[in-house]
């Protein structure tokens, strides 16, 4: 590069020095605190804010100290990991993704079971608690809910600049916790914002919009191929490859309004077949503990337990944890599961939807 004047040359030198100096300082600070746990385990005593599932789950899965984890959609965010410690003696980490598709579960489970991670070098995975949302099993096998920040998922150090030179990381995840001096309680991490006041029938019914009725009934076999593909590709490999890990897989207790949707959209038989198929696939493995919570009649028919048509009160999460510990609602074989489904059918058939919708809320 030829020089025209000393001034231009000096400007470039100073400019580069200032830019490099600040960027190196910023990088060093981010690497030291590492709010997304991309480089190291959390610093003792730093009040980390954990509220970003997409950005923080991979780092937590790789580097936190845990022997069991919670995987699944928003149906799992209200579990308290302290409950798992109290009831089952497990050091559990919550790795939920709101709206997760099976591929999202696959992505995070791949990290959880990666033997090369510091987390796996320290602890084996004793248990995985997986909330299985049947409607998502019809998604494409490689479909994910939200675009992932790949710079936090891949091994490419170059694209780490998006993490190191990131204003939000600096301000929201380093400066903010320093100022407020209060970090996230990991036992409650990702818990939904609904307070107790939101769990009532008025709130649920105000927000509920029934789907358009479908006159023609869905082919009962229609959902099975995609369900099989998703289970085969995104779930079963982990169960098969880790026989020493207990998989507590559960069907979350959606409210009766979910079943109203199933009826209105005219796919009751297809959905029931889907449940049966998934359960049959999962029950082939000794390390799977399958739980069916959807026919807890007093829970699912009382909309005061819900904030919308599927999301239940955190009390239910506590109850489900107790069930994982003592085996209540566990289904041991496909015959038992069919009985559970029949019970579910009975609840749906006997429920007075007309009365529910005729009232003012």
């Amino acid at each position, binding site marked *: *590069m*030829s*020089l025209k*004047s000393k*001034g*231009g040359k000096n400007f470039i030198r*100073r400019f580069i020095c*200032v830019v490099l100096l600040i960027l190196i300082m910023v990088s060093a600070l981010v690497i030291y605190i590492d709010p997304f746990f991309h480089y190291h385990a959390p610093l003792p005593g730093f009040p980390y804010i954990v509220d970003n599932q997409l950005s923080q789950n991979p780092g937590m899965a790789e580097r936190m100290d845990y022997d069991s984890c919670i995987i699944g959609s928003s149906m799992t965010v209200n579990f308290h990991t302290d409950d798992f410690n109290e009831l089952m003696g497990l050091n559990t980490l919550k790795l939920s993704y709101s709206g997760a598709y099976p591929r999202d579960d696959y992505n995070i489970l791949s990290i959880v079971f990666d033997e090369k991670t510091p987390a796996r070098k320290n602890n084996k995975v004793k248990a995985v608690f997986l909330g299985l949302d049947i409607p998502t099993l019809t998604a494409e096998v490689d479909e994910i809910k939200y675009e992932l920040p790949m710079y936090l998922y891949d091994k490419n150090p170059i694209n780490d600049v998006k993490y190191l030179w990131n204003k939000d990381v600096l301000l929201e995840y380093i400066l903010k916790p320093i100022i407020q001096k209060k970090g996230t309680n990991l036992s409650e991490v990702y818990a939904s914002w609904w307070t107790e006041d939101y769990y009532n029938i008025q709130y649920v019914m105000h927000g509920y919009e029934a789907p358009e009725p479908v006159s023609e009934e869905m082919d009962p076999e229609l959902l099975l191929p995609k369900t099989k593909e998703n289970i085969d590709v995104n779930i079963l490999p982990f169960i098969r490859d880790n026989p020493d890990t207990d998989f507590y897989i559960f069907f979350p207790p959606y409210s009766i309004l979910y079943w109203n949707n199933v009826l209105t959209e005219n796919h009751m038989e297809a959905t029931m077949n889907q449940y049966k198929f998934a359960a049959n696939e999962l029950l082939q493995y000794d390390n799977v503990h399958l739980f069916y919570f959807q026919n807890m009649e007093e829970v699912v028919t009382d909309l005061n337990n819900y904030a919308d048509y599927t999301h239940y009160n955190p009390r239910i999460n506590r109850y489900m944890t107790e069930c994982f510990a003592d085996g209540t609602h566990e289904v041991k074989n496909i015959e038992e599961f069919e009985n559970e489904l029949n019970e579910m059918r009975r609840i749906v058939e006997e429920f007075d939807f007309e009365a529910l919708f005729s009232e003012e809320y």
Partner: protein
Amino acid sequence: MTFNSYSFIFIFLPVFLAGVWVIQSFYPENGFKEKLMKIWLIAMSAFFFVGYGQFSVLIFGSSILGNFLFSFRISRRLKKCNGNTDDWLIRLYKISAIILNVILLCFFKYFGTGVMPVAISFYTFSQIMYVADLGKEDSFDALDYLSYITFFPKILQGPIADHKSIKEGLEKLPSGRINSDDISAGIMLFTLGLFKKVILAQVLGEAVDFGYAGLAGMTALDAVILAVSYSFQLYFDFSGYCDMAEGICRMLGMELQMNFDAPYTSGNIAEFWDRWHISLTKFFTRYIYIPLGGSRKGVVRTYLNILIVFFISGIWHGTGLTFIVWGMMHGVLMVLTRICGKEKGSGRKNPLKVLLTFMYVTAAWVFFRAPSLSDAMTLLCKIVNPDAWSGLHISIKFAECFMVDEIWYVFKVTPIPNWNKSNYICMWIILCVSALLVFWGKTAKKIAAGSANVITSEDDKNKMKKWAVSVAYGILFVWCVLSLGGVSTFLYVNF
């Protein structure tokens, strides 16, 4: 790849400049050096564009191939008929090429699947300019044509520079030398453009998106701030991009046609269009207004021609009635300005005229931005309805959209957060800084030129100033780099 990305700033641009420098410094002076430089430019431009996906690359490639073949045929014919551009076959080729270009553009704008190939509006106009001028001022050369059409600093959002101006710059490139003065001036201009885009346009954009998503809940004052914010956002977004493009060219020692010249300081609408998207105005004047007869065919025809140009401008900018209304609002005022004989601004600016012009342009931008005519009318009715003004009130949620985290954290160490109206302070700061930059009349180019004068001054008394300029640009640049994650795409990228 966009200019406001880590990969462009820290990898693509340095590699591109290094390649230019290597060719300039080490390749022997011979006939191939110029070709090699053009091949480097084309290769890097292709690499720049290829990230926009197969669909956009395919359409751009087809456009290039089609225009290349037409240009080739025209050049062959020109040789045969001794450069006579009035030859019937040449005219036929040119008209066919222009029609096909227009069809391609209209197809994707009005009949396509809704997915627009990236930059199609910009490169189609460049193709039209190239073909139309072929033989008049330019002769055909394959590398020359490709380096002009694909030139990455202008490909995404213009300026719609003519072939001659780009060619002149590119011809000097192989024999020139990248030097520190040009690089420093380019860095300054690029940094200012980046600041306009990733800081100002971004924060204004968030507020604008919020406002337009909930027009019904807007108060009268909200509506005014929303409309003004969009005027600012559009200017910072688009001119910020052009400043960055100019900055890149400046680093090469080239001048790229100026596309914005403090447009909101205009005293009337004619002056506004002399300052806003200048290259587009020139294109419409040269290739539509003048061929229609311009002002040569009587007063009524002149006014009609103006209205036709702004109608076309409206449909070029977007589909739907809102864009036609936007175009016609400008066209009608342009005609009225002509009728009143106030077309050219006098030397000294009348602040009232500047304000009135800004208000009119802002009202027109409401149609440009609103999803539908009824949404636009809803917003404008809120502003003009006297009842809506009872009790001046700005919605807190709307004001909070202007919240810039870094400013807020600075406030945290002051008593400001305890004030009653502290949530509004960020909003007023953003609006005031924007207004200052917009109405001050100094473009980024002028500011960068002023800074360049300081750093190249021989006066030793300026030593502190020189340091201050370097540090200020360094900090501004880092601020922008730290803000790159999650910024919106360019507003004009889909045009």
